[in-house]
Protein backbone atom coordinates (compact mmCIF):
# COMPACT_ATOMS: atom_id res chain seq x y z
CA UNK A 1 0.00 0.00 0.00
CA UNK A 2 1.18 3.51 -0.70
CA UNK A 3 2.04 6.07 1.90
CA UNK A 4 -1.22 7.94 1.22
CA UNK A 5 -3.37 4.95 2.07
CA UNK A 6 -1.54 4.39 5.37
CA UNK A 7 -1.87 8.08 6.08
CA UNK A 8 -5.60 7.73 5.36
CA UNK A 9 -5.87 4.81 7.82
CA UNK A 10 -3.96 6.83 10.42
CA UNK A 11 -6.19 9.87 10.00
CA UNK A 12 -9.36 7.76 9.95
CA UNK A 13 -8.15 6.24 13.23
CA UNK A 14 -7.55 9.71 14.65
CA UNK A 15 -11.04 10.76 13.57
CA UNK A 16 -12.63 7.69 15.16
CA UNK A 17 -10.52 8.14 18.28
CA UNK A 18 -11.58 11.75 18.74
CA UNK A 19 -15.22 10.93 18.05
CA UNK A 20 -15.43 8.02 20.48
CA UNK A 21 -13.27 9.61 23.15
CA UNK A 22 -15.23 12.80 22.75
CA UNK A 23 -18.32 10.91 23.87
CA UNK A 24 -16.52 9.86 27.06
CA UNK A 25 -15.16 13.35 27.64
CA UNK A 26 -18.58 14.93 27.17
CA UNK A 27 -20.22 12.39 29.47
CA UNK A 28 -17.59 12.90 32.17
CA UNK A 29 -18.01 16.66 32.14
CA UNK A 30 -21.79 16.36 32.18
CA UNK A 31 -21.56 14.00 35.15
CA UNK A 32 -20.31 16.84 37.33
CA UNK A 33 -23.72 18.46 37.19
CA UNK A 34 -25.78 15.33 37.74
CA UNK A 35 -27.06 14.27 41.13
CA UNK A 36 -29.59 11.56 40.23
CA UNK A 37 -27.84 8.15 40.59
CA UNK A 38 -29.86 6.66 37.74
CA UNK A 39 -28.85 9.43 35.35
CA UNK A 40 -25.23 9.14 36.49
CA UNK A 41 -25.34 5.45 35.60
CA UNK A 42 -26.85 6.25 32.22
CA UNK A 43 -24.04 8.69 31.46
CA UNK A 44 -21.48 6.14 32.62
CA UNK A 45 -23.08 3.57 30.30
CA UNK A 46 -22.87 6.02 27.41
CA UNK A 47 -19.18 6.49 28.08
CA UNK A 48 -18.63 2.73 28.29
CA UNK A 49 -20.51 2.15 25.04
CA UNK A 50 -17.85 4.09 23.12
CA UNK A 51 -14.98 1.97 24.47
CA UNK A 52 -14.98 -0.60 21.67
CA UNK A 53 -14.81 2.10 19.00
CA UNK A 54 -12.07 3.84 20.98
CA UNK A 55 -9.86 0.76 21.08
CA UNK A 56 -10.49 -0.04 17.43
CA UNK A 57 -9.64 3.50 16.40
CA UNK A 58 -6.44 3.39 18.44
CA UNK A 59 -5.34 0.28 16.56
CA UNK A 60 -5.91 1.97 13.22
CA UNK A 61 -4.31 5.20 14.40
CA UNK A 62 -1.16 3.47 15.67
CA UNK A 63 -0.80 0.93 12.86
CA UNK A 64 -1.43 3.53 10.15
CA UNK A 65 0.92 6.01 11.77
CA UNK A 66 3.79 3.58 12.37
CA UNK A 67 3.70 2.16 8.85
CA UNK A 68 3.22 5.56 7.23
CA UNK A 69 6.28 6.65 9.17
CA UNK A 70 8.31 3.85 7.62
CA UNK A 71 7.01 4.76 4.16
CA UNK A 72 8.45 8.27 4.39
CA UNK A 73 11.54 7.25 6.36
CA UNK A 74 10.41 9.37 9.29
CA UNK A 75 11.71 7.06 12.00
CA UNK A 76 15.11 8.67 11.79
CA UNK A 77 13.59 11.91 13.03
CA UNK A 78 12.78 12.86 16.58
CA UNK A 79 9.26 14.27 16.20
CA UNK A 80 7.70 10.88 15.39
CA UNK A 81 9.40 9.13 18.30
CA UNK A 82 8.35 11.88 20.72
CA UNK A 83 4.79 11.80 19.33
CA UNK A 84 4.53 8.07 19.87
CA UNK A 85 6.08 8.26 23.31
CA UNK A 86 3.75 11.06 24.41
CA UNK A 87 0.70 9.18 23.07
CA UNK A 88 1.62 5.97 24.86
CA UNK A 89 2.64 7.73 28.09
CA UNK A 90 -0.58 9.73 28.24
CA UNK A 91 -2.66 6.63 27.47
CA UNK A 92 -0.89 4.70 30.22
CA UNK A 93 -1.43 7.49 32.75
CA UNK A 94 -5.00 8.36 31.79
CA UNK A 95 -6.24 4.78 32.09
CA UNK A 96 -5.73 4.41 35.87
CA UNK A 97 -6.68 8.05 36.50
CA UNK A 98 -9.97 7.60 34.70
CA UNK A 99 -10.86 3.99 35.41
CA UNK A 100 -10.33 4.14 39.19
CA UNK A 101 -12.41 7.27 39.56
CA UNK A 102 -15.27 6.22 37.29
CA UNK A 103 -15.34 2.73 38.74
CA UNK A 104 -15.97 4.36 42.12
CA UNK A 105 -18.61 6.71 40.67
CA UNK A 106 -20.39 3.81 39.01
CA UNK A 107 -20.20 1.68 42.16
CA UNK A 108 -21.61 4.40 44.40
CA UNK A 109 -24.29 5.41 41.88
CA UNK A 110 -25.39 1.80 41.42
CA UNK A 111 -25.61 1.28 45.17
CA UNK A 112 -27.64 4.46 45.66
CA UNK A 113 -29.91 3.59 42.75
CA UNK A 114 -30.52 0.23 44.46
CA UNK A 115 -31.51 1.96 47.68
CA UNK A 116 -28.29 2.13 49.69
CA UNK A 117 -28.20 4.78 52.39
CA UNK A 118 -24.53 4.27 53.25
CA UNK A 119 -23.54 7.34 51.26
CA UNK A 120 -25.33 10.66 51.69
CA UNK A 121 -26.45 12.89 48.84
CA UNK A 122 -23.84 15.42 49.95
CA UNK A 123 -21.06 12.85 49.77
CA UNK A 124 -22.27 11.75 46.34
CA UNK A 125 -22.32 15.36 45.13
CA UNK A 126 -18.82 15.86 46.48
CA UNK A 127 -17.63 12.82 44.55
CA UNK A 128 -19.20 14.07 41.33
CA UNK A 129 -17.75 17.56 41.79
CA UNK A 130 -14.26 16.11 41.62
CA UNK A 131 -11.80 17.93 39.39
CA UNK A 132 -10.77 14.61 37.87
CA UNK A 133 -12.66 15.20 34.57
CA UNK A 134 -10.85 18.53 34.13
CA UNK A 135 -7.50 16.91 34.83
CA UNK A 136 -8.22 14.21 32.29
CA UNK A 137 -9.49 16.68 29.72
CA UNK A 138 -6.46 18.90 30.24
CA UNK A 139 -4.10 15.96 29.91
CA UNK A 140 -5.87 14.73 26.80
CA UNK A 141 -6.21 18.06 24.99
CA UNK A 142 -2.73 19.16 25.98
CA UNK A 143 -1.04 16.01 24.75
CA UNK A 144 -3.06 15.89 21.53
CA UNK A 145 -2.24 19.52 20.85
CA UNK A 146 1.45 18.83 21.38
CA UNK A 147 1.36 15.78 19.11
CA UNK A 148 -0.45 17.81 16.44
CA UNK A 149 2.27 20.47 16.69
CA UNK A 150 4.97 17.82 16.29
CA UNK A 151 3.26 16.18 13.31
CA UNK A 152 2.53 19.39 11.43
CA UNK A 153 5.70 21.36 12.15
CA UNK A 154 8.13 18.44 12.59
CA UNK A 155 10.51 20.65 14.58
CA UNK A 156 13.20 17.98 15.05
Amino acid sequence: MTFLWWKFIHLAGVFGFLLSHGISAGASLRLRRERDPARVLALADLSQASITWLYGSMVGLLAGGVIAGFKIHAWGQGWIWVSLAVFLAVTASMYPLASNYYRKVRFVAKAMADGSTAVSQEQFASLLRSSRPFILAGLGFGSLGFILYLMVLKPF
Partner: protein
Amino acid sequence: MSYRTIVFGTDGSDTAAVAQAAAFGLASRADAEVVIVSAFGGTLARDAAEAAVAAAASLAEQRGVKVRTLVVEAPAAEAILHVASTEDAGAIVVGSRGMGPARRLHLGDVPDRVAHGAPCDVLIVDTSDERKPAPIRTMLVGTDGSPTATEATRKAFELAEILRAAVTVIYVGDPMVGAIVLEQAIKDRPGEARAETLLEQGDPADRIREAAARTGVDLIVVGNKGMAGARRFLGSVPDRVAHEAPTDVLIVKTVGRALEDLAPGHGGIVTIGSRTVAGYRDEQGVLHAVSPRCTHMGCTVDWNDREKTWDCPCHGSRYRWDGAVTHGPAKRDLAPEDVSES
Protein backbone atom coordinates in the same frame (compact mmCIF):
# COMPACT_ATOMS: atom_id res chain seq x y z
CA MET B 1 -21.12 -24.07 55.11
CA SER B 2 -20.97 -27.59 56.50
CA TYR B 3 -17.88 -29.35 57.70
CA ARG B 4 -18.63 -33.04 57.35
CA THR B 5 -15.00 -34.04 57.72
CA ILE B 6 -12.18 -32.20 59.48
CA VAL B 7 -8.58 -33.34 59.14
CA PHE B 8 -6.28 -32.71 62.08
CA GLY B 9 -2.54 -33.47 62.13
CA THR B 10 -0.71 -34.24 65.35
CA ASP B 11 2.74 -35.23 66.52
CA GLY B 12 1.66 -35.60 70.14
CA SER B 13 3.31 -32.35 71.22
CA ASP B 14 1.85 -29.86 73.69
CA THR B 15 1.25 -27.34 70.91
CA ALA B 16 -0.56 -29.99 68.93
CA ALA B 17 -2.78 -30.50 71.96
CA VAL B 18 -3.85 -26.85 71.79
CA ALA B 19 -4.77 -27.18 68.11
CA GLN B 20 -6.42 -30.50 68.88
CA ALA B 21 -8.80 -28.91 71.36
CA ALA B 22 -9.81 -26.36 68.72
CA ALA B 23 -10.35 -29.11 66.15
CA PHE B 24 -12.55 -31.12 68.50
CA GLY B 25 -14.47 -28.02 69.55
CA LEU B 26 -15.21 -27.16 65.93
CA ALA B 27 -16.14 -30.73 65.08
CA SER B 28 -18.45 -30.95 68.05
CA ARG B 29 -20.37 -27.80 67.06
CA ALA B 30 -20.44 -28.70 63.38
CA ASP B 31 -21.29 -32.36 64.01
CA ALA B 32 -18.30 -33.32 61.88
CA GLU B 33 -16.05 -36.34 61.90
CA VAL B 34 -12.38 -35.75 62.67
CA VAL B 35 -9.72 -37.69 60.80
CA ILE B 36 -6.62 -37.58 63.02
CA VAL B 37 -3.41 -37.90 61.02
CA SER B 38 0.13 -38.44 62.19
CA ALA B 39 3.12 -38.72 59.86
CA PHE B 40 6.24 -40.72 60.63
CA GLY B 41 9.51 -41.28 58.87
CA GLY B 42 11.04 -37.88 59.56
CA THR B 43 11.59 -36.74 63.13
CA LEU B 44 8.74 -38.88 64.41
CA ALA B 45 9.01 -42.65 64.72
CA ARG B 46 6.09 -44.89 63.82
CA ASP B 47 5.49 -45.87 67.45
CA ALA B 48 5.29 -42.24 68.52
CA ALA B 49 2.93 -41.40 65.65
CA GLU B 50 0.60 -44.26 66.54
CA ALA B 51 0.67 -43.25 70.22
CA ALA B 52 -0.14 -39.66 69.29
CA VAL B 53 -3.22 -40.53 67.23
CA ALA B 54 -4.39 -43.06 69.82
CA ALA B 55 -4.21 -40.50 72.61
CA ALA B 56 -5.97 -37.89 70.49
CA ALA B 57 -8.69 -40.34 69.45
CA SER B 58 -9.31 -41.26 73.06
CA LEU B 59 -9.84 -37.63 73.99
CA ALA B 60 -12.11 -37.12 71.00
CA GLU B 61 -14.30 -40.03 72.00
CA GLN B 62 -14.53 -38.67 75.54
CA ARG B 63 -15.87 -35.44 74.04
CA GLY B 64 -18.35 -37.30 71.90
CA VAL B 65 -16.60 -36.42 68.63
CA LYS B 66 -16.70 -38.94 65.81
CA VAL B 67 -13.14 -39.85 64.96
CA ARG B 68 -10.93 -41.99 62.70
CA THR B 69 -7.17 -42.24 62.76
CA LEU B 70 -4.51 -42.55 60.08
CA VAL B 71 -0.77 -43.01 60.42
CA VAL B 72 1.12 -42.18 57.24
CA GLU B 73 4.75 -42.52 56.23
CA ALA B 74 5.35 -39.18 54.54
CA PRO B 75 6.43 -35.63 55.31
CA ALA B 76 3.89 -34.14 57.67
CA ALA B 77 2.48 -31.43 55.38
CA GLU B 78 2.16 -33.79 52.42
CA ALA B 79 0.44 -36.37 54.62
CA ILE B 80 -2.13 -33.87 55.84
CA LEU B 81 -2.82 -32.51 52.35
CA HIS B 82 -3.11 -35.98 50.85
CA VAL B 83 -5.55 -37.16 53.51
CA ALA B 84 -7.60 -33.95 53.19
CA SER B 85 -7.87 -34.54 49.46
CA THR B 86 -8.74 -38.24 49.63
CA GLU B 87 -11.18 -37.74 52.50
CA ASP B 88 -12.81 -34.75 50.76
CA ALA B 89 -12.30 -32.76 53.93
CA GLY B 90 -14.14 -29.52 54.54
CA ALA B 91 -11.38 -28.16 56.76
CA ILE B 92 -7.86 -28.83 58.01
CA VAL B 93 -6.80 -27.78 61.50
CA VAL B 94 -3.13 -27.11 62.21
CA GLY B 95 -1.21 -25.34 64.95
CA SER B 96 0.66 -22.16 64.17
CA ARG B 97 3.94 -23.64 65.33
CA GLY B 98 3.58 -26.71 63.23
CA MET B 99 4.78 -30.15 64.03
CA GLY B 100 8.29 -30.60 65.34
CA PRO B 101 10.83 -27.78 65.58
CA ALA B 102 9.53 -24.34 64.57
CA ARG B 103 10.73 -20.79 64.80
CA ARG B 104 9.05 -18.60 67.36
CA LEU B 105 6.74 -15.91 66.01
CA HIS B 106 6.70 -17.59 62.61
CA LEU B 107 4.45 -20.17 61.11
CA GLY B 108 6.34 -23.43 61.09
CA ASP B 109 7.07 -25.25 57.89
CA VAL B 110 4.08 -27.60 58.13
CA PRO B 111 1.23 -25.10 58.67
CA ASP B 112 2.67 -22.77 56.04
CA ARG B 113 2.78 -25.51 53.41
CA VAL B 114 -0.66 -26.74 54.40
CA ALA B 115 -2.11 -23.21 54.20
CA HIS B 116 -0.71 -22.69 50.71
CA GLY B 117 -1.64 -26.07 49.29
CA ALA B 118 -4.90 -27.02 51.01
CA PRO B 119 -7.87 -28.23 48.93
CA CYS B 120 -10.24 -26.89 51.58
CA ASP B 121 -10.52 -24.37 54.42
CA VAL B 122 -7.61 -24.22 56.87
CA LEU B 123 -7.88 -23.27 60.53
CA ILE B 124 -4.51 -22.17 61.89
CA VAL B 125 -4.69 -22.30 65.68
CA ASP B 126 -2.49 -19.89 67.58
CA THR B 127 -0.41 -22.16 69.82
CA SER B 128 2.19 -19.54 70.73
CA ASP B 129 1.46 -19.55 74.45
CA GLU B 130 0.15 -23.13 74.71
CA ARG B 131 -2.88 -21.68 76.46
CA LYS B 132 -6.00 -23.66 77.03
CA PRO B 133 -8.09 -22.55 74.07
CA ALA B 134 -11.40 -20.82 74.67
CA PRO B 135 -14.48 -21.35 72.52
CA ILE B 136 -14.73 -19.04 69.54
CA ARG B 137 -17.16 -16.30 70.53
CA THR B 138 -16.03 -13.43 68.33
CA MET B 139 -14.81 -13.35 64.73
CA LEU B 140 -13.28 -10.72 62.49
CA VAL B 141 -13.65 -11.06 58.71
CA GLY B 142 -11.98 -8.77 56.19
CA THR B 143 -13.66 -7.80 52.94
CA ASP B 144 -12.80 -5.60 49.99
CA GLY B 145 -16.16 -6.10 48.29
CA SER B 146 -14.73 -8.49 45.69
CA PRO B 147 -16.61 -11.70 44.87
CA THR B 148 -14.05 -13.86 46.69
CA ALA B 149 -14.13 -11.63 49.77
CA THR B 150 -17.93 -11.69 49.69
CA GLU B 151 -17.77 -15.47 49.62
CA ALA B 152 -15.39 -15.47 52.61
CA THR B 153 -17.75 -13.14 54.50
CA ARG B 154 -20.72 -15.37 53.74
CA LYS B 155 -18.84 -18.43 55.03
CA ALA B 156 -17.78 -16.50 58.13
CA PHE B 157 -21.40 -15.74 58.98
CA GLU B 158 -22.41 -19.35 58.37
CA LEU B 159 -19.64 -20.50 60.72
CA ALA B 160 -20.75 -17.89 63.24
CA GLU B 161 -24.22 -19.45 63.19
CA ILE B 162 -22.69 -22.85 63.97
CA LEU B 163 -20.46 -21.50 66.74
CA ARG B 164 -22.99 -18.91 67.99
CA ALA B 165 -20.34 -16.25 67.62
CA ALA B 166 -20.52 -12.54 66.86
CA VAL B 167 -18.94 -11.21 63.68
CA THR B 168 -17.15 -7.95 62.97
CA VAL B 169 -16.71 -7.18 59.27
CA ILE B 170 -13.77 -4.92 58.48
CA TYR B 171 -13.13 -2.97 55.30
CA VAL B 172 -9.81 -1.21 54.74
CA GLY B 173 -9.78 1.38 51.98
CA ASP B 174 -11.87 4.18 50.52
CA PRO B 175 -14.44 5.34 53.11
CA MET B 176 -17.29 5.86 50.65
CA VAL B 177 -16.87 2.50 48.94
CA GLY B 178 -16.26 0.85 52.29
CA ALA B 179 -19.47 2.17 53.76
CA ILE B 180 -21.42 0.61 50.91
CA VAL B 181 -19.52 -2.69 51.00
CA LEU B 182 -20.08 -3.03 54.75
CA GLU B 183 -23.75 -2.12 54.41
CA GLN B 184 -24.16 -4.82 51.77
CA ALA B 185 -22.20 -7.38 53.80
CA ILE B 186 -24.51 -6.94 56.80
CA LYS B 187 -27.65 -6.82 54.70
CA ASP B 188 -26.76 -9.98 52.77
CA ARG B 189 -25.47 -12.02 55.69
CA PRO B 190 -27.00 -15.46 56.09
CA GLY B 191 -28.45 -16.28 59.45
CA GLU B 192 -28.91 -14.09 62.50
CA ALA B 193 -25.39 -13.82 63.95
CA ARG B 194 -24.68 -10.54 65.73
CA ALA B 195 -22.72 -8.29 63.41
CA GLU B 196 -20.73 -5.09 63.62
CA THR B 197 -18.62 -3.21 61.10
CA LEU B 198 -15.25 -1.48 61.09
CA LEU B 199 -14.02 0.96 58.46
CA GLU B 200 -10.29 1.60 58.37
CA GLN B 201 -7.71 3.05 56.02
CA GLY B 202 -4.15 2.09 55.33
CA ASP B 203 -2.49 -1.24 54.79
CA PRO B 204 -5.18 -3.95 54.88
CA ALA B 205 -3.11 -6.65 56.58
CA ASP B 206 -1.82 -4.23 59.22
CA ARG B 207 -5.27 -2.81 59.96
CA ILE B 208 -6.81 -6.28 60.22
CA ARG B 209 -4.10 -7.41 62.59
CA GLU B 210 -4.42 -4.25 64.72
CA ALA B 211 -8.21 -4.51 64.80
CA ALA B 212 -7.97 -8.13 65.92
CA ALA B 213 -5.57 -7.21 68.72
CA ARG B 214 -7.63 -4.17 69.75
CA THR B 215 -10.98 -5.97 69.85
CA GLY B 216 -9.57 -9.23 71.19
CA VAL B 217 -11.42 -11.41 68.69
CA ASP B 218 -11.02 -15.19 68.90
CA LEU B 219 -10.79 -15.81 65.14
CA ILE B 220 -9.87 -13.93 61.96
CA VAL B 221 -11.44 -15.12 58.71
CA VAL B 222 -9.85 -14.42 55.32
CA GLY B 223 -10.27 -15.84 51.81
CA ASN B 224 -7.48 -17.82 50.19
CA LYS B 225 -7.00 -15.49 47.20
CA GLY B 226 -3.29 -14.87 46.81
CA MET B 227 -2.25 -17.91 48.87
CA ALA B 228 -1.08 -19.84 45.82
CA GLY B 229 0.90 -19.04 42.72
CA ALA B 230 3.12 -16.01 42.27
CA ARG B 231 1.00 -13.76 44.49
CA ARG B 232 2.10 -15.64 47.61
CA PHE B 233 5.58 -14.18 47.13
CA LEU B 234 4.16 -10.67 46.83
CA GLY B 235 2.79 -10.78 50.35
CA SER B 236 -0.94 -11.13 49.78
CA VAL B 237 -3.26 -9.96 52.53
CA PRO B 238 -4.40 -13.45 53.67
CA ASP B 239 -0.82 -14.71 53.65
CA ARG B 240 0.37 -11.81 55.80
CA VAL B 241 -2.62 -12.10 58.13
CA ALA B 242 -1.97 -15.84 58.55
CA HIS B 243 1.66 -15.17 59.48
CA GLU B 244 1.16 -12.09 61.65
CA ALA B 245 -2.22 -12.59 63.32
CA PRO B 246 -2.38 -12.44 67.14
CA THR B 247 -5.10 -15.09 67.18
CA ASP B 248 -6.50 -18.08 65.29
CA VAL B 249 -6.97 -17.63 61.54
CA LEU B 250 -9.44 -19.42 59.27
CA ILE B 251 -8.41 -19.33 55.62
CA VAL B 252 -11.58 -19.98 53.64
CA LYS B 253 -11.33 -21.52 50.21
CA THR B 254 -12.74 -18.95 47.78
CA VAL B 255 -10.33 -19.41 44.86
CA GLY B 256 -9.51 -22.61 43.02
CA ARG B 257 -12.84 -24.12 43.90
CA ALA B 258 -14.41 -27.14 42.27
CA LEU B 259 -18.00 -27.64 41.14
CA GLU B 260 -18.89 -29.42 44.33
CA ASP B 261 -17.81 -26.36 46.36
CA LEU B 262 -20.73 -24.38 44.93
CA ALA B 263 -23.55 -24.28 47.43
CA PRO B 264 -27.18 -24.01 46.23
CA GLY B 265 -28.05 -20.43 45.40
CA HIS B 266 -24.44 -19.43 44.82
CA GLY B 267 -21.99 -19.22 41.99
CA GLY B 268 -18.37 -18.63 41.22
CA ILE B 269 -15.43 -19.37 38.95
CA VAL B 270 -14.51 -23.02 39.37
CA THR B 271 -11.79 -25.24 38.02
CA ILE B 272 -12.51 -28.46 36.13
CA GLY B 273 -9.28 -30.15 35.19
CA SER B 274 -7.32 -27.65 33.16
CA ARG B 275 -10.21 -25.32 32.37
CA THR B 276 -12.21 -22.78 34.33
CA VAL B 277 -15.93 -22.27 34.02
CA ALA B 278 -18.42 -19.85 35.49
CA GLY B 279 -20.79 -22.02 37.49
CA TYR B 280 -24.04 -21.26 39.28
CA ARG B 281 -25.92 -23.83 41.34
CA ASP B 282 -29.58 -22.87 41.67
CA GLU B 283 -31.73 -23.37 44.75
CA GLN B 284 -32.78 -26.79 43.45
CA GLY B 285 -29.13 -27.81 43.19
CA VAL B 286 -29.02 -27.79 39.39
CA LEU B 287 -25.71 -26.58 38.01
CA HIS B 288 -25.57 -24.00 35.22
CA ALA B 289 -22.15 -23.46 33.64
CA VAL B 290 -21.08 -20.85 31.13
CA SER B 291 -17.84 -19.49 29.78
CA PRO B 292 -16.10 -17.13 32.20
CA ARG B 293 -14.87 -14.88 29.36
CA CYS B 294 -16.80 -11.68 28.74
CA THR B 295 -17.88 -11.56 25.10
CA HIS B 296 -16.88 -7.89 24.88
CA MET B 297 -13.12 -8.00 25.37
CA GLY B 298 -12.45 -11.34 27.03
CA CYS B 299 -12.06 -10.33 30.68
CA THR B 300 -12.96 -12.94 33.30
CA VAL B 301 -16.37 -12.23 34.78
CA ASP B 302 -17.09 -12.15 38.51
CA TRP B 303 -20.09 -13.67 40.28
CA ASN B 304 -22.41 -11.11 41.87
CA ASP B 305 -24.07 -13.03 44.69
CA ARG B 306 -26.60 -10.29 45.49
CA GLU B 307 -28.01 -9.98 42.01
CA LYS B 308 -27.24 -13.53 40.84
CA THR B 309 -25.44 -12.19 37.79
CA TRP B 310 -22.08 -12.44 36.09
CA ASP B 311 -20.43 -8.99 36.04
CA CYS B 312 -17.44 -7.99 33.93
CA PRO B 313 -14.99 -5.92 36.03
CA CYS B 314 -13.39 -4.35 32.95
CA HIS B 315 -16.19 -2.40 31.27
CA GLY B 316 -19.34 -3.21 33.26
CA SER B 317 -21.09 -5.79 31.07
CA ARG B 318 -23.57 -7.90 32.98
CA TYR B 319 -25.04 -11.33 32.28
CA ARG B 320 -27.84 -13.30 33.91
CA TRP B 321 -26.95 -16.48 35.81
CA ASP B 322 -27.55 -18.49 32.62
CA GLY B 323 -25.19 -16.29 30.59
CA ALA B 324 -27.80 -14.13 28.82
CA VAL B 325 -26.42 -10.62 28.40
CA THR B 326 -28.51 -7.99 30.16
CA HIS B 327 -26.21 -4.97 30.11
CA GLY B 328 -23.54 -3.89 27.62
CA PRO B 329 -21.15 -3.06 26.14
CA ALA B 330 -21.16 -6.83 25.48
CA LYS B 331 -23.66 -7.88 22.84
CA ARG B 332 -23.40 -11.68 22.91
CA ASP B 333 -24.34 -14.12 25.67
CA LEU B 334 -21.76 -16.13 27.56
CA ALA B 335 -21.34 -19.45 25.81
CA PRO B 336 -22.72 -22.48 27.69
CA GLU B 337 -20.14 -24.92 29.02
CA ASP B 338 -20.59 -28.67 29.03
CA VAL B 339 -19.93 -30.02 32.51
CA SER B 340 -21.14 -33.24 34.00
CA GLU B 341 -21.53 -34.03 37.68
CA SER B 342 -21.45 -37.58 38.92
